[in-house]
């Protein structure tokens, strides 16, 4: 399993990709494998305010349902409506077509995205999943 080095990760198994102040969010390949076949993703509403570490949706698989946590603070600008027709994209391409939502992240004093300090690097996230399994 390889987690893209350019992404940041959370202990709740989300990934986040930040360009400027726009963050794209999905769940990791590890999470998708643990869940099994994803059959439904409850997406946050566009325009909704999300808070880092708070649930903002659900990922439902054949055997379980899990909360989807936002890794960042901000406002949802877009959701992956492809998932409504084909939730299995989360399993097939967790870091690509299986992305889930995008957030306009609050800015810090320099106009940069104000990201939580506890986001993990790919290496740190791999350590976490290794010790869990």
């Amino acid at each position, binding site marked *: 399993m390889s987690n893209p080095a350019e992404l940041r990760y959370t202990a709740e198994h989300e990934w986040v990709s930040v360009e400027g102040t726009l963050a794209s969010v999905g769940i990791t390949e590890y999470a998708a494998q643990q869940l099994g076949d994803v059959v439904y993703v409850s997406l946050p509403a566009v325009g909704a305010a999300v808070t880092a570490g708070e649930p903002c949706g659900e990922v*439902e698989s*054949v055997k379980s349902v899990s909360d989807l946590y936002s890794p960042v603070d901000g406002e949802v600008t877009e959701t992956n409506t492809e998932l409504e027709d084909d939730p299995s994209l989360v399993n097939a391409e967790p870091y690509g077509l299986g992305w889930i939502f995008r957030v306009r992240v609050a800015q810090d004093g320099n106009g940069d995205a104000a990201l939580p300090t506890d986001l993990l690097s790919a290496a740190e996230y791999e350590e976490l999943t290794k010790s869990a399994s």
Partner: protein
Amino acid sequence: MTSFAGWQMPLRYGSETAEHQAVRHAAGLFDLSHMGEITVTGAEAGRALDYALTGYLSAMAPGRARYTMICAADGGVLDDLVVYRLGEQEFLVIANAANTSVVFDELRSRASEFDAVVTDATDDYALIAVQGPAAAGILGGLTEIDLGAMKYYSGAAGSVAGFPVWVARTGYTGEDGFEVFARPADAVAIWDALVAAGTPAGLIPAGLAARDTLRLEAGMPLYGNELGPDLTPFEAGLGRVVKFDKAGDFVGRSALAVLAAAEPARRLVGLTIQSRRIPRHGYPVLADGVVCGTVTSGAPSPTLGQPIAMAYLNAGPGADDAVLAVDIRGEAVPAQLTDLPFYSRSR
């Protein structure tokens, strides 16, 4: 992998949906070695089982199998079982893994007045199931047993891939298929032989997750969900397994006779859901907004393309005429009452 009744079990090998579809359309291979095997042997083995279980096992011919139950004195279900008659004085009782010790203790105690010996033989058997429309063709190439002549719920001793086995035409998927009881030391070689023979026909290994959605579509109960000590065979819609016409007393008889004459306190039903959200074990069922029952099992049905569930509805007026819904984490999702099973294969 997942922990299951003290065993490490594969929940899935790849995609559980693909594994489910392989069983419906080609074949799936299951490692069911966790299931409990208990032998009952001796001159009165059949009579001992007649007394211990709800079924009429002494009337069964050697080579046949029955689905039956072991009930407590109050009529509650301790386990559901498949019993094979291997010979005139030899029966093989298959128990759910989590219940094997309970079933073994009860059988030994209930058989104590009979000329019969009860042995927990779980460690003597590996169990491999080949299930699906291609199963007979795949297994047929590895055995001298005439599978074409083997009726549903029958079995025979013989060999598979050169190893001694007991093969039965039984399963828990709603498809044609076979269960192969083998010596544990031979199991890997038999598994590998079945994979090699079956892969060209579309056989893939299948895990517990697919097994659960397959049995749910087929309307088959799972102990711990649809069956338990607080539930009766009649509530589960399985009163047919209680054989009141057999000779002699059996454990639970008087309580079961009373239960059979009364309307059950609840009944097991099928529900279909017009939503992507899944009704799951323990979720409340609502009739016109009022709680009227509980979901016991739920899953997305690959065959129907929508979520399905089994649920117990409390007895009383209403459910058939009411607007039903399942409370899925706070949202009342409309549900339709459906006959069980959700799926039956064309024969």
